[in-house]
């Protein structure tokens, strides 16, 4: 039982902590032990980025609808490389793309804090418009609420998105096999470190900007190259490490990651060292993780490397029969360690 949440009917005064939203172990338990406990839909229980709902037979259509929702609570609202408007569009597009869907429509609900300058809001909404047009997703419905000062961090956005999955396209963890390769589409941790430094007012490098970007084209390049895509995931909050732990958990295979093959910019690596963070677990907003059969790994890597958003893509690991349920990092020194979901918030160490 989750210690930090109330037992049913007990009225125990345990509270939600920030760590419950960090994408680590507490988030996982919150989802499993509260949300999935009451919301029993099998589609929800798959815990993929989008629900894929069969549309076969609906007005003679074939294929499936992908349906997703997400909320964006970034601070500051504008950061190097993006803003919350762009983030909301890209997050929605990427959740749909991770289901193998073509993004079509989205809804945006804005929760604004009293006192937010109108010109700031205008910049954010203009950014949302520009990026939705660029990604080919239409913002077709929306909502606005204003809350008193102090009750929100400037602005929050909740989005829902709908996309179309062509007939016969089937992705999911049930298709993952031992021997499959794991690829990541580019350098890890750019978003998390850029935002963390922006929040602190630190400018470490002019090159270090958030990677926030719509990845539907990058995903499409895999299908165009006829790669047999087994499983896709948008590595956001919690980073690549959380995505892989989630994939391995409860499965009868393990995942081995080659530490040396992880693409990490020197600036991110340096900042992570300084702050005591592991790039494996730092957030991204423009990185896709894919599992493909070993014979398709070269084609997948080639497709990504020739796409502008996948130039730094790399094969980073493999699915294995060893250590089922676990992710294991292989160091360059011939040693190995278990990769564990972080327990709480990513916090800077003391010295």
């Amino acid at each position, binding site marked *: 039982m989750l210690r930090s949440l109330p037992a049913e009917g007990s009225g125990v005064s345990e509270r939600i902590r920030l760590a419950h939203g960090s994408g680590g172990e507490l988030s996982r*338990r919150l989802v499993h032990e509260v949300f999935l406990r009451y919301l029993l839909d099998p589609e929800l229980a798959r815990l993929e980025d989008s629900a894929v709902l069969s549309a076969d037979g609906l007005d003679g259509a074939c294929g499936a609808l992908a349906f997703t929702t997400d909320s964006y609570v970034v601070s500051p609202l504008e950061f190097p490389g993006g803003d919350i408007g762009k983030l909301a569009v890209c997050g929605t597009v990427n959740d749909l793309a991770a289901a193998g869907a073509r993004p079509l429509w989205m809804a945006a609900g804005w929760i604004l804090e009293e006192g937010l300058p109108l010109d700031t809001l205008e910049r954010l909404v203009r950014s949302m418009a520009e990026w939705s047009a660029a990604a080919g997703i239409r913002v077709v419905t929306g909502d606005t609420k204003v809350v008193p000062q102090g009750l929100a961090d400037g602005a929050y956005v909740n989005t829902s998105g709908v996309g179309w999955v062509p007939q016969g396209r089937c992705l999911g963890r049930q298709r993952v096999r031992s021997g499959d390769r794991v690829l990541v589409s580019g350098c890890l941790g750019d978003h998390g470190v850029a935002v963390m430094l922006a929040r602190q007012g630190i400018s470490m490098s002019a090159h270090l900007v958030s990677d926030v970007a719509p990845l539907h084209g990058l995903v499409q390049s895999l299908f165009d190259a006829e790669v047999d895509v087994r499983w896709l995931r948008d590595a956001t909050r919690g980073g690549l490490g959380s995505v892989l732990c989630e994939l391995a958990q409860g499965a009868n295979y393990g995942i081995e990651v080659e530490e040396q093959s992880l693409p990490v910019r020197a600036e991110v690596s340096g900042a992570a060292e300084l702050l005591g963070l592991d790039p494996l677990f730092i957030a991204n907003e423009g990185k896709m993780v894919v599992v493909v059969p070993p014979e398709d790994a070269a084609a997948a890597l080639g497709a990504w490397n020739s796409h502008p958003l996948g130039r730094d893509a790399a094969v980073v690991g493999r699915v294995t029969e060893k250590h089922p349920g676990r992710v294991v990092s292989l160091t*360059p*020194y*011939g*040693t190995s*360690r278990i990769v564990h979901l972080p*327990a*709480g918030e990513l916090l800077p*160490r003391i*010295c």
Partner: protein
Amino acid sequence: MRYLSDFRDAAACAALAERIRRLAHGAGEMQFMEFCGGHTHAIARHGLRSLLPENVRLVSGPGCPVCVSSQGDVDRAVALAGRDGVTVVTFGDMMQVPGSEGSLQEARALGADVRVVYSPADALRLAVDCPGRQVVFLGVGFETTAPAVAATVLQAQRQGITNYSVLSLHKLTPPAMRAVLDAGEVRLDGVIGPGHVSTVIGAGAWRFLPEEHGLGCAVAGFEPADLLLAVAELVRMVVEGRPEVANCYRRSVSDGGNSRALAVMEQAFQVVDADWRGLGVVPASGLHFRPELADLDAGARLALPKLESREPAGCRCGEVLRGVLEPSQCPLFGSACTPESPVGPCMVSTEGACSAHYLLREAG
């Protein structure tokens, strides 16, 4: 950034591991303490233990400032956070440490104003930005952190900032090392000297180890090659029977330390006895503000009461901190005590031995 790749070079590390094996061959059992939590973390993260021959063992010491903060100190911090008009500011590691009545994180979830910062300067800035609140920085850390905290206090005094104060829980490392050795509970053949701390106090501060205790000391950086080089040096000293202080972190550490940082510390602090978790009261091992800075001492300004503190039942962090117990030998390790629901501070802090052993355990 070049340092990272050079000191993580696999071939260099393999050569150092081979040197250790050769030196230690047939030399009998030896046990070295890595005093510093940063080293504990790095050793676990890179799986360095499995590169050492069977007769060379590493044992963790009390070098994690979060872990050695006494239960009473954590309780005082939580009590402060609960006061009206007070904002408690801290480094991240302290948030989750359980006090007798819960952690700072739990206090925040109940409405206390607790903020996490990356540097003490951010805490002072917060005080300037929030003139209506008493901003209290938790001064937790060793000689590494103390100069930066001292600098904020001196700056606050110069600028006449009246709503900033520090609860100084700073501790000094050489007295703690002495206390571990004087207790005689753990047999050691050498010590890996802390890298960041020695950058401030200098490698020379560890000379008492060979001179008074006949133990070698190798001051090390935090990359795999740094640590393996330090172990090789310690093995060499044991084999040759010539204990000394070897500075294996010359790119950061000098013999005399950082005179500017030491001067700032000297200006703000005086040395006092301090209560360490696991070691109890260690003479002349803590830093309190000088009398002329009493206004900036949160303990004095906010009249903190003495609190009845209870150590968590069954928690053996104290023995882990003294190097007497391996984390995995604690009955709570990995069952009742995990990073998600830690019972003791060694499982909370990223520098803590239990957390490092649990999160970074080697794959079988």
